[in-house]
């Protein structure tokens, strides 16, 4: 195993609880809830009243009468709804990992052990970013896939048991492969989009003596206030607001967002042509380099 692969493994070992076990637990919980819901509504004697203006469903619901646009909209909504809880867990896990990882190693002084190994500080910082921005999302995508498939099984049984139409349609109209591809592409582009924020969190993690979260919020807020007070502009606030958005993930948020919602693969790829993304990558690379430099001499709290 190469040294960098070993570093990735080391990061994975440290953070597998929030990145893997919490996701797996969420998958298990969703499965249990879905099965219980099926048992209650699908085979039970409960009367179902569908009152959804958005779905525009007739009282006697039949999926056979849905038009193609309806199918596309419902499928996208279904994929996104299933993704949301996993994304929420990932977001919190990544935030606390990036903010804590270089702080915790100073707190327990294990930084001295890691720095006694033939590994550069930049390799260490990069390995942490790769795990947070690339490897953890892969786990998320796998969990989402499982959840979507389990959800389809439950829905199929429901549709079949209630005689609501041809249940097989669900499987080929739900767009699971397309959704997985869009998530994968989305997270790849998203990793570039949020790089300035992720690397900034690591710079805070390696620099501050305590209260990393407070510092992480206070520094950009203070800088934005200073900028507004001095020049009357909102460049920093606007940049931060844009780059904490899930801009490359399909369907996230609403149309009132700062960044337009992406729907198609084309929308996602168009983000790569946005100069703002590459400016962020440049700033993120600067923050990552600075984090590595600071780690070089900042050993203890």
């Amino acid at each position: 195993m190469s040294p960098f692969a070993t570093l990735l493994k080391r990061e994975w070992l440290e953070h597998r609880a929030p990145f893997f076990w919490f996701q797996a637990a969420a998958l298990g919980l969703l499965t249990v809830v879905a099965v219980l819901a099926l048992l209650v509504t699908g085979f039970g004697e409960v009367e179902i009243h569908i009152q959804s203006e958005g779905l525009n469903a007739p009282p006697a619901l039949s999926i056979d009468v849905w038009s193609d646009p309806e199918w596309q909209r419902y499928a996208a909504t279904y994929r996104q709804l299933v993704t949301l809880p996993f994304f929420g867990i990932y977001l919190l896990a990544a935030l606390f990992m990036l903010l804590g990882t270089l702080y915790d190693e100073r707190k327990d002084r294990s930084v001295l052990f890691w720095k006694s190994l033939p590994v550069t500080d930049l390799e260490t910082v990069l390995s942490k970013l790769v795990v947070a921005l690339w490897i953890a999302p892969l786990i998320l995508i796998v969990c989402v896939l499982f959840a979507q498939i389990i959800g389809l099984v439950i829905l199929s049984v429901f549709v079949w048991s209630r005689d609501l139409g041809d249940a097989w349609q669900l499987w080929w109209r739900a767009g699971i492969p397309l959704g997985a591809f869009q998530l994968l592409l989305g997270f790849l582009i998203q990793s570039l989009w949020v790089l300035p924020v992720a690397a900034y969190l690591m710079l805070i993690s390696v620099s501050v003596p305590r209260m990393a979260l407070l510092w992480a919020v206070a520094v950009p807020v203070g800088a934005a206030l200073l900028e507004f007070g001095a020049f009357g502009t909102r460049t920093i606030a606007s940049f931060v607001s844009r780059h904490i958005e899930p801009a490359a993930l399909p369907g996230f948020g609403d149309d009132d967002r700062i960044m337009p919602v992406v729907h198609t693969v084309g929308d996602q790829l168009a983000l790569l042509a946005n100069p703002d993304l590459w400016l962020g990558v440049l700033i993120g690379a600067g923050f990552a380099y600075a984090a590595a430099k600071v780690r070089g001499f900042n050993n203890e709290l």
Partner: protein
Amino acid sequence: MSDISELESTSLIQARGLEKSFRDVRALDGFDLDLKPGRIVGLIGPNGSGKTTAIKTLLGLCRRNAGELTVLGRDPADGRARIMQQVAYIADTGILPRWMKVADLIDCFEGLHPSFDRARLDATLADTDVRRNAKVQALSKGMNVQLHLALILAIDARLLVLDEPTLGLDQIFRQKFYNLLVNDYANEARSILITTHEVREIEHLLTDVIFLSHGRCRLSIETAALEGRFTKLVADPAGADAARPLNPLFEQRSLQGVELIFDGVPRDQLAALGDVHTPNLAELFVAVVGGRE
């Protein structure tokens, strides 16, 4: 030139005038060191004398403010990762990651160290109570040090740097630790730099000794040269009175009489005034450094 003599001519560490300050505290104040292969050097000083800062500066773990430094031919401030391929380090408190399982830690160490020898690690760990499925935080302090030492013995490091490695360990563990060090690590191509304030504990191991006080080297000498340079005189009050004009470094009363330690005074000259001995390192340390603290 033979391999050994070539090795001996190349310093593993060359430090000249190292300075390091933390705000208004000067931790290193012109620190010098020339460490050749095959040496076991004791860096001895009281708490706060700058030992740990010296070690961290030498290893590139903290930035120096001034001075020249090369470790294995490189400046550790720029090339720490390269240097660490041949340098091993154990700090004064447990620095192994507490959240890791021993087996995972060994795997990571193997993956990151190009010269790791697993068979050697297995052999060293076989003599300990360290369980591989235990987490590091579940190990006692003694086992923690044993594990760290086993990891280090499994790499082909040319320089081993130990910063108070036996702090908090009981006497039996200390003995085992130093036996392992001398029997399994030390040879003519490798060097050990060890800091401690427990002078007696390592006195018999050392080939060189450096006394550090307030960030400065107060004495740097081969232990073999101590006898020819320093003399301890135990005399009655009259003998002590006669010896005082020879400028003793240190003087104290004891049950045997008055003890005086001299630097560079011929032993024959002192022998006429009382009993003469070679001071042990603890006595010499107090004589050289004690007055400055």
